[in-house]
């Protein structure tokens, strides 16, 4: 069986020794100990495993590692630079766009690919672009907002205020 012996991950050449048919997700998580990419379904249906391959958002759970050889693989671990969070990561915190946060890595990686292609997406374009990612906690509205914040389309902190409405006004 064909083997894969090296991978370009997060700008570094990594040595591995795995069958080419093994999933990229498994190699990232179990061999390279990059556990930020998550298993959610193993079928490309939930997006928790999303990484970038040559800049394209890819479901690593249904991608054989052999198909990623020689390409640039980017995972959530590479987004923060020099100890500073990526604008999307900042925006997810600002919009409180997570609950259990198990989907968050995949959401942020999908969103980064979306913004690379379309720096100022509309709400509809975000919804279409992100529809392959599941957040079972249901924070979609906040994730849309986080992507809008990161794209500069919306000022941060719409949810961050102390919206003490007491039924007087609607905070949405």
């Amino acid at each position, binding site marked *: 069986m064909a083997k894969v012996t090296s991978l370009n991950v997060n700008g570094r050449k990594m040595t591995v020794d795995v069958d080419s048919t093994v999933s990229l997700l498994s190699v990232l998580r179990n061999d390279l100990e990059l556990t930020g990419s998550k298993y959610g379904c193993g079928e490309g249906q939930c997006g928790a495993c999303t990484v970038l391959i040559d800049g394209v958002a890819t479901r690593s759970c249904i991608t054989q590692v052999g198909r990623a050889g020689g390409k640039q693989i980017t995972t959530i671990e590479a987004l923060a630079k020099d100890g500073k969070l990526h604008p999307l*990561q900042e925006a997810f915190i600002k919009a409180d766009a997570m609950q259990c946060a198990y989907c968050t890595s995949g959401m942020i990686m999908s969103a980064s690919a979306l913004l690379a292609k379309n720096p100022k997406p509309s709400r509809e374009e*975000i919804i279409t672009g992100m529809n392959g990612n599941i957040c*079972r906690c249901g924070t979609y509205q*906040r994730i849309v907002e986080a992507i809008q914040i990161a794209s500069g389309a919306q000022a941060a902190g719409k949810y961050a205020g102390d919206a003490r409405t007491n039924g007087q*006004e609607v905070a949405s």
Partner: protein
Amino acid sequence: MIDEQMLSDEIEVERYELFESLAYNFSFDRRDFIKAFGLGIVFIVPATRALAQQRGQGESGRGGFNQSLPNDIDAWIHIDEKGEVTVFTGKVEVGQNTRTTLTQSVADELHVPVSAVRLVMGDTDLTPFDMGTFGSRSTPTMAPQLRKAAAAAREALLAMAAEQLNVAAGDLRIVDARFLNHDKSKTLTLAEVAKGRKLVKVIPDNIAITQPKDWTIAGTSVTKVDAAKYVSGKHQYTFDIKRDGMLYGKIVRPATFNASLVSVDSKAAEAMPGVKVVADGSFIGVVAPDQQTATKAANAIAVDWKSAGQPSNKELFDVLRKPATNQRGGGGEGGGGGSRPQGSIADGLAAADKKLEQTYTVQYIAHAPLEPRAAVAEWNGDKLTVWTGSQRPFGVRTELADAFHISEDKVRVIVPDTGSGYGGKHTGECAIEAARLAKAAGKPVKLTWTREEEFTWAYFRPAGVIDIKSGVKNDGALTAWEFHNYNSGLSGIQIKYEIPNNDIRFHPSNSPLKQGSYRGLAATANHFARESHIDELAHAVNIDPLDFRLKNIKDERLRAVLEATAKAFGWGKSKPAGNHGFGLACGFEKGGYVATCAEIAVEPPSDKEDKANKRIRIVRVVEAFECGAIVNPRHLHNQIEGSIVMAIGGALFESIQFDNGKILNPHFAQYRVPRFSDLPKIEVVLVDRKDIPSAGAGETPIVGLAPAIGNAIFNATGVRLRSLPLAPKGLANQT
């Protein structure tokens, strides 16, 4: 208020959240604490109900370590020599942000920044016993206990600091974790006070805690604790844990539920390098150096199973109508549960101008937490340690101790902050499986369930049948209410409508599938049936559904959320188009009051949808929620939005399909959950009642959506749908 709470405690015994009663009565010793924590000061929080038995109350003195401590302890707080505050609680974090809100409560009471407080949660060796994180109990019960501990700590620390500084205690206050006297001429840090101490204090029960109107840190939108770790992929869920020498496991599952093993041939698997097969009764599993090999080996094992015929969705509701002969889903509740009947249904119906009798049904649905069940098990001699995502770390410890016939002090369960639960992670089957494999392998083993296993071998929200018989006068006064819930449960079964003659009952059934807790429990089913039926009655007497409810509801808190929602929604305005509909529902459960208004549109199906059916699109949802004093408005807002989105699935399309002991749709491609494209415009109205103790909020906001959508569909089409999910494949064109 008190009477109401007692009544609800009595009636809301929810059998799916009842587990074995506690067998423990640990006796803690001060020396254990000193050994465990080293120097500093430990504050012990006795359990509320055990105060009468409390011994050794108060200060023991530095020499009196051998004095007994209370047997039932809710939490403890340690202030170490560096001045770092660590709180130990058996509660767990599963995305509901209880780590953040409990941290806020302690910081608020102790007058230190949130960043100075760390919570150790859900570790059976480090934290006191806790029944589990469910039932929206963390905020109303654990937060006040932690506040008491923090308040006692604050007062004790002030006294110690005053002694050290040689000033009167009344002259000192704590600001940002520093002790200051009136002119700030004398200061001390927490570390300077804790240094060199070896103190264990039991907090007195009569300590006053800060009231919501005086909160400074609680009540504000503090950012989620560890948020930066989550967005960086650095948080370690159970799935991410790796131990030295760890192997990977895989279980060979039976072909159907309730199957018994006929034969097994594992020669091919055993021949694989590095593979070990573990067969113990009907338990068959493998371990291997990597996951791929484990899966390959498991697939290579030939197994024959046999089972008798089992029901499918087709027979489900007939099966549920038959009385229970066994108790599935965790014992406790006997037959015929409910509240005491009031008045006479016959009299109530006789007094009515209109009578109505209807049946409502609810299918099984799955929690589908994005992190499936997982466990890492490690044996060191006869001591077992298991990392697993569970809402009941101590319950899982009991399960493990029972399974391996060892005492509970030989088992440690550690729950890393978990990829959600929604009531679906109360059980420890994955932990037991991993521990069995690890025992055979003599090495740590990680076992992660696949999505298909999570959909199949976990448990479901109970299906149910609800019959309602009612009477109403032409002026809108309700006269009779007879309500029978078969199987789904008691939660939310009580009425807030003033109906002089009512009879409300719950009937347990033999559930064809394994069932258990789910966010809100039966409150969704009971609210769906009740609020749909109320809508039908309002239409029967030609009264606006909002006016009809307000006419029959006296409870001020429920009226307040109803009115707030209706106002924000613009109830009474005309529909934007003929294919749109408005619906309304309200309710009460677990100390929370909710009202939901929804606007839906009936549209042509999209390319991906069944052409024979129209599409139901949820356009807008407005929900008002009141759960007493708000601890963190931002996270409350988030919980309400999340509940609404999760509720869309159960309302419109989620349903477990099963036949003859098999789940037919155990994948996200077949079991549709809400996605971005299902997202309506959501508007949340928070009603803050600083005069009322905080209740939990992770569950009740889920109950209003399904009936509001059903009522909106009726408003748009004139068709009344009485089964959840309402439109799994869309709305049939003939309707």
